[in-house]
């Protein structure tokens, strides 16, 4: 099946493009695509470790199963700043959403 990957911010600069379509095995999960991309772009490793994930514009966990035509985005930390940052991690906020 075809998965559309879009790259933003530091990921876009590392892979050198804004998007691409990947051929992924039926039943593949977000984590599988992550591994696939790290093979192709080893320089993504350090930022990928800090990314969360969105499929079709919603936050998901790495265990999420993908479907043909899905849009997958790896989301590096946003530059929140301020006191909120100190009180909660992004993942905690998203889980409470």
């Amino acid at each position, binding site marked *: 099946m075809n998965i559309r990957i879009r790259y933003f911010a530091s990921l876009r600069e590392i892979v050198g493009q804004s998007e691409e379509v990947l051929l992924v095995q039926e039943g593949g999960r977000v984590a599988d695509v992550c591994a696939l991309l790290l093979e192709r772009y080893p320089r993504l490793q350090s930022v990928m470790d800090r990314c969360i994930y969105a499929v079709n*514009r919603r936050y998901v966990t790495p265990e999420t199963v993908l479907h043909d035509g899905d849009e997958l985005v790896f989301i590096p930390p946003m530059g929140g700043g301020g006191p909120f940052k100190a009180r909660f991690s992004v993942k905690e906020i998203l889980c409470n959403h």
Partner: protein
Amino acid sequence: MQPLVQLTREPLDRDALVAAVSHPSVGGIVVFEGVVRDNARGKQVRYLEYDVYQEMAELQIRSIIAEARQHWGVEHVAVAHRFGRMEVGEASVIIAVSSPHRAEAFEACRYIIDTLKTTVPIWKKEVAIDGEEWVEG
């Protein structure tokens, strides 16, 4: 009333956002404006570059506004975020919230900017005198 959400490359228009939350039943308006600073983390900033995952950012901002409206009962909210290159002193984000009484407007506005900054897929790159860097929180 439908909240106003804008993601744009153009300079933000504060007065238009305040007008969007004005209504005869409104007694207080709170506006937050995020501005490009000339320094950050000990570096002298030349300019900022914002990148945005536009379709998801808009959905996410609308969901934050919906939460704020439900929690504080604020009826009128407008959020605008700029992307692309911004110079020192320019506004990157403006949030306007109005309500009959001021307490709700203050709290909802604070919630929206705090949550936006950490959960909406918008990133900034600081371009300083001696190098550039995507800011991670």
